[in-house]
């Protein structure tokens, strides 16, 4: 449904800010290991010994295809790219890299908005795209086992004819791979009811940096010992390379229907959401758009949205009678908040029109401006305060903001509008974005709800965590990847991880 979203984001960034390269911009990456760079020929030769000829790419023109992910402001071609076709091949590659002390950056489909799959010049980029088979579907036990290069949407595609679906639905679901979903613990619009990736992941086949292949979890529920599966999900490819996954699939609901409501203040919309939740209804999605966002989408998609301060789209599921029952309650609550508009969908066409603007929101914003998309989460009750503060900061920075977000779970996606052709505007926008994320942390929320830390929010980690908190996380990486070779320059501020990464290098 909302695939428009991330694609359009990537598109506008490519269009506008692709001229930014390392060194000319805020986010630093570690100095590439000169020894590794000088041994390129030997490394490539070893990789070619363990992989088919066409699975190793070392030509500098060809490796450029992998120089960035969807955070296109940052680019760096890797030393080499490998495209293994099996868990055994992944294991062989990692063994070689482990022996030769070469960092490895795993990559799903490269749709990360946080730079999770951004290469370094001294790394082997390991893409899982050739591993996209369905290995097993089991409706009686409600799971599907797939190779992790398979795209999110095609997991649902493999089971929908039989009445099932895979619940996590990140906006990039047409393109994004399960491998990346697991690495980032991806969410989507429907998490309020169905949870995020970690809640729908039952087991993985994972290859450790030294080439060890292991099965964690499986067709049963919960861990018999420590919950390593829960630890691996969301570890941004730093603990191992997940090659196969057992995913929970769910029977499709009988039907779903959205309702649209407009309010004359953000606070009122926020209060309405809280009241609906308190009343015991658990809609499958609650999406929020503020006035700048409504105006832009109206100009772009002409969905016929009311011009107001805040708009909610709420979707419920079930049989027709169940939908009626839930919507009646929701509408009754909404009426108490003096909505400027209440619009029910009588058929699929009207439902489509209600969703049209929301789904076009990111593309619409891109039509009128360059923008940066944020991903903080806040406690739902803080919504009015946070929106007010963002409005004030917007004036201070002189940059406009449009807010669109998953209101039920507090996951905000403020879009900061800027002019990439104007000197200093991108830096200003980044500073503003960092301030918004700090605000999210300040009110009890977090830096990232579903996109991941990658390199994008790496240096803000100390705003959310004390050094001891980060130390505990880095100690986990020490256990899984003692030499810090897997995706080492991500997640943790470089200064915080430096001693570990330099020990790894000195060990060569």
């Amino acid at each position: 449904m909302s695939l428009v979203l991330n694609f359009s984001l990537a598109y506008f960034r490519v269009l506008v800010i692709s001229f930014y390269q390392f060194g000319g911009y805020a986010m630093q990456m570690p100095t590439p290991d000169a020894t590794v760079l000088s041994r390129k020929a030997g490394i490539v030769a070893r990789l070619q010994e363990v992989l088919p000829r066409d699975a190793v790419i070392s030509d500098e023109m060809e490796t450029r295809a992998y120089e960035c992910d969807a955070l296109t402001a940052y680019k760096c071609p890797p030393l080499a790219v490998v495209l293994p076709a099996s868990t055994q091949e992944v294991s062989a590659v990692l063994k070689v890299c482990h022996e030769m002390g070469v960092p490895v950056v795993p990559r799903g489909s490269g749709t990360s908005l946080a730079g999770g799959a951004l290469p370094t010049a001294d790394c082997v980029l390991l893409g899982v795209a050739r591993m996209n088979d369905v290995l097993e579907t089991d409706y009686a036990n409600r799971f599907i086992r797939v190779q992790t290069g398979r795209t999110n949407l095609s997991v649902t595609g493999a089971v929908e004819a039989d009445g099932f679906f895979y619940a996590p639905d990140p906006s990039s679901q047409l393109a994004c791979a399960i491998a990346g979903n697991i690495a980032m613990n991806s969410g989507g619009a429907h998490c309020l009811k169905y949870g995020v990736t970690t809640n729908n992941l039952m087991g993985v086949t994972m290859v450790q940096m030294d080439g060890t292949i292991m099965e964690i979890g499986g067709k049963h529920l919960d861990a018999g010992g420590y919950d390593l599966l829960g630890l691996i999900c969301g570890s941004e490819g730093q603990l191992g390379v997940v090659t196969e996954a057992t995913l929970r699939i769910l029977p499709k609901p009988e039907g779903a229907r959205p309702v649209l409501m407009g309010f004359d203040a953000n606070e009122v919309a926020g209060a309405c959401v809280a009241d609906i939740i308190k009343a015991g209804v658990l809609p499958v999605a609650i999406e929020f758009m503020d006035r700048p966002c409504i105006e832009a989408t109206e100009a772009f998609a002409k969905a016929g949205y009311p011009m107001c301060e805040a708009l909610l789209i709420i979707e419920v599921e079930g049989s027709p009678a169940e939908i009626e029952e839930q919507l009646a309650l929701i509408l009754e609550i909404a009426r108490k908040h003096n909505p400027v508009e209440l619009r029910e969908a009588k058929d699929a066409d009207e439902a489509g029109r209600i969703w049209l603007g929301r789904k076009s929101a990111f593309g619409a914003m891109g039509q009128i401006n360059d923008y940066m998309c944020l991903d903080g989460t806040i406690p739902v009750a803080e919504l009015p305060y946070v929106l007010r503060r963002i409005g004030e900061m917007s004036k201070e920075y002189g940059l406009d903001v449009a807010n669109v977000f998953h209101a039920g779970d507090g996951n905000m996606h403020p879009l900061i509008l800027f002019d990439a052709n104007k000197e200093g505007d991108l830096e200003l926008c980044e500073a503003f974005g960092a301030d918004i994320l700090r605000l999210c942390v300040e009110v009890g929320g977090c830096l990232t709800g579903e996109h991941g830390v990658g390199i994008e929010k790496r240096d803000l980690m100390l705003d959310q965590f004390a050094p001891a908190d980060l130390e505990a996380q880095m100690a986990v990486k020490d256990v899984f990847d003692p030499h810090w070779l897997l995706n080492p320059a991500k997640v943790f501020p470089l200064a915080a991880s430096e001693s570990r990464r330099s020990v790894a290098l000195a060990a060569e």
Partner: protein
Amino acid sequence: MRPETEAELADMIASASGPVCVRGGGTRGVSLDGSVLETGGLSGITLYEPGSLTLVAQSGTPLAEIEAALDAEGQRLAFEPMDHRGLLGTSGAPTIGGVVAANVSGPRRVSVGACRDFVLGVRYVDGAGTIVKNGGRVMKNVTGYDLVKLMSGSWGTLGVLTEVNLKVLPKPETAACVLIDGLSDADAVQAMAKALASPFEVSGAAHIPVGLDGHPVTMLRIEGFAGSVAYRSDQVAGLFGDMAVRVERDPAAVAKGWAWVRDVEAFHGQPGDVWRVSCTPTGAAELAATIGAEALLYDWGGGLVWARVAAGTDVRARLGAFDGHATLVRGSGQAKFQPEPAAIAALSRGLRLKFDPEGILNTGLMG
């Protein structure tokens, strides 16, 4: 030891000279050598926002206090934590820290997730006495590694929880239970799979080979708004038109029945060891038959098998290799937790060494 604050707890751990046995309410049957550290002094709900579906509590807060606070707002802990007292013959008041440390989930685990799926954040003190926080109090959070999952179900061996942040859910308006009489274990597992694969949101699927009246009964729970529950329970019952189907529509009776399943009441006061086997649901009946149990109870559509066996029975040896794990819940003489394959055991050991370098927290229990 009974610290009143997190800082005091951290000091106690930092200066501990030997093993520490961590205790919440002491209801989950953990009894180990070492100085007992009670968390009961760290008590109280620190934040509850019904509109945000979140609750924060200190780890020693009695579960009953949390459930009462939630109930007053028409909400609940959806993962339906089991009460171990009847099964283990323990007394005391279960604490929320104990629930999280043991990842205690009930019948609804099959539909909404385990305890670990509802823990949004934790604060804990590791084995060196360092205070650490992870996660937060929001529903979507991918900032850094998810140590919340690691701490959930680590039984106090990686750190002593001091505070937990929970996602809570609305309590449904009503509930009904579709009952099928007389099924064999294998047929019951099939029926439960069919119900769980339907779009009617079955929130519990259990089978008792010998029910209260001495006959097998299969239970399928439906929860929600009244109209919806009436509709869905009829639909689910309709899936089994050729069987002996009844629908229990009295919510109090439904609640009682599921508490009976949740707490494995059928085994209360009965002799022998009790094992909990997590397995692939459709293989459950066949697998359970290998145990040679004196009594069985199937939950999670067959994905969870409770087995009561003669004391000292090596159930793992009888099960052989299977996709899943067996935990000894009541009894002794066997390892409590399923031994792990070498590569995973190495990781567990490594984590244990990092989080508790001296090996003082609940020594010998896990990892």
